[in-house]
């Protein structure tokens, strides 16, 4: 089985936000929630870089570790998913997540959090694959159709890569060798405790 990962080549990202839009549209993500976002560092200064970030589907995921109701699970492709039926909206995964991936619809009183929502790597949830029940809660299950996450598929500069970790790391390595520079695989050390030697 593949070990699915995301890799954002920040030297290619042009901050077009197509990945953000594609994700929102594909999964009909509700208002106020963004499963993916583009963050620009050093904006307008030398060394400006944009990074598209979502759930990184960590190895030994912190969200899963701190969840008081154990609603997370990891698929055979190493995608970290969760069950909205079990989630109680406590916010713990948000405190633990290094990437700010978990988000909560504001429902009910005070700042009360609803069921957590995050990037599913276009792999749905615990419901039967590609059913309406799955779509309503988690969005499209592209992985079940043999397709990769839409954000990466849409990327106009092929900055955002999704797929087996070994393969996308190799693609990135080749790019770095060819062009002679690379600002590294953002988030990899935090998410996978490894980095791509270039």
């Amino acid at each position: 089985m593949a070990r699915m990962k995301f890799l954002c080549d920040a030297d290619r990202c042009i901050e077009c936000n197509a990945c953000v839009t594609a994700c929102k549209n594909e999964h009909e993500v509700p208002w106020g929630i963004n499963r993916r976002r583009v963050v620009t560092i050093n904006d307008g200064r030398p060394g400006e870089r944009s990074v598209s970030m979502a759930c990184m589907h960590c190895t030994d995921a912190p969200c899963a570790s701190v969840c008081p109701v154990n609603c997370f699970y990891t698929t055979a492709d190493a995608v970290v998913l969760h069950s909205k039926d079990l989630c109680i909206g406590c916010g713990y995964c948000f405190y633990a997540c290094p990437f700010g991936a978990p988000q909560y619809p504001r429902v009910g009183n005070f700042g009360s959090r609803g069921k957590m929502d995050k990037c599913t790597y276009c792999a749905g949830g615990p419901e039967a694959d590609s059913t309406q029940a799955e779509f309503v809660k988690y969005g499209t299950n592209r992985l079940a159709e043999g397709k990769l996450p839409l954000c990466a598929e849409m990327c106009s500069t092929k900055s955002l890569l999704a797929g087996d970790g070994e393969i996308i790391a190799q693609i990135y390595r080749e790019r770095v060798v060819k062009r002679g520079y690379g600002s590294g695989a953002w988030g990899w050390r935090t998410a996978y405790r490894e980095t791509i030697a270039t």
Partner: protein
Amino acid sequence: MMAFLTRIRIAVGALALLAIFAALAPAAAQQPTQVNPTAQAVNEAQLFKQLGQIDGRCTLPDQKACLLEQPGGRDWRQFSEVTLPWIGAISILGMLGVLVLFYLIRGMVRIESGRSGRTIVRFSAFERFVHWMTAVCFIVLAISGLNITFGNKLLLPWMGPEAFTAWSQWAKYAHNYLSFPFTLGVVTICLMWIAWNFPSKADVEWLKAGGGIIGKEHPPARRFNGGQKLIYWIVVLGGGAVAITGYLLMFPFWGTGIAGMQTAQIVHGIVSVLFVAAMLGHIYIGSIGMEGAFEAMGTGTVDENWAKQHHSLWLEEQKAKGKVADAPPSGRMQPAE
């Protein structure tokens, strides 16, 4: 022959060099230095070192999404999964163990001279109402809070995921909503009893004498003794701390960021488990630990001999104020013949 060949080689070499310079010259004029975008580019490891977390700019209306990475979540995970359960287990089980041991050794603290049959008002109906409102809220908050830390280890395996989620969901609602009457109770307790809870010299003597619990003698005390003052300050300061940190967590991003909420949760967790341990001691001494103590918060009155034994100075004050009835002992304490 050799010399001729050498000459040709030098000439060819010189021509080649000239050709290279000629070819390079215009290119060098256009690009005087080689472009290396990484020379000035940001580096993840370096940013972590400088900032601890990486923020940027984003175009989303939700500006909280501009946080790119916060590895501080790792430390919080360590606290939540390892540190807090240990602190909680040691303090709460430790306190329970101490109380059981103490009960086995010391037993219930009796009213030494027996009941006099004469009672004296200790807590008004309002005071008792505030106490029990806070107490009931505290118990629910404690159970629902401990469920978050220990539930998935202790209850989930035999409850099953669906039932455990249903229970935890209700526990979360109870935790959120009962925080309001609890906070109201803590504030009221703080205001209504503060006059009797400033530490005094008598408290030092009281503590030195082991509060009359460990030793045999009964040090004099006014309305609240050293131990009760300690409980008062634990409730006021501990309750205040859990209330403030709790509301910070309940209203995400109100005046805090992610690091602030992590800190709030750490304070909330540690103070809460210690608070629970302290309250176990309070519940023990107010129930099976001491004869005649529960009535103070139950009916609001205590036996005069209990007051003499535990709050001698207070009893004298009340007598001086004429608040103690001099009526003869009533009913059941009367000898039959």
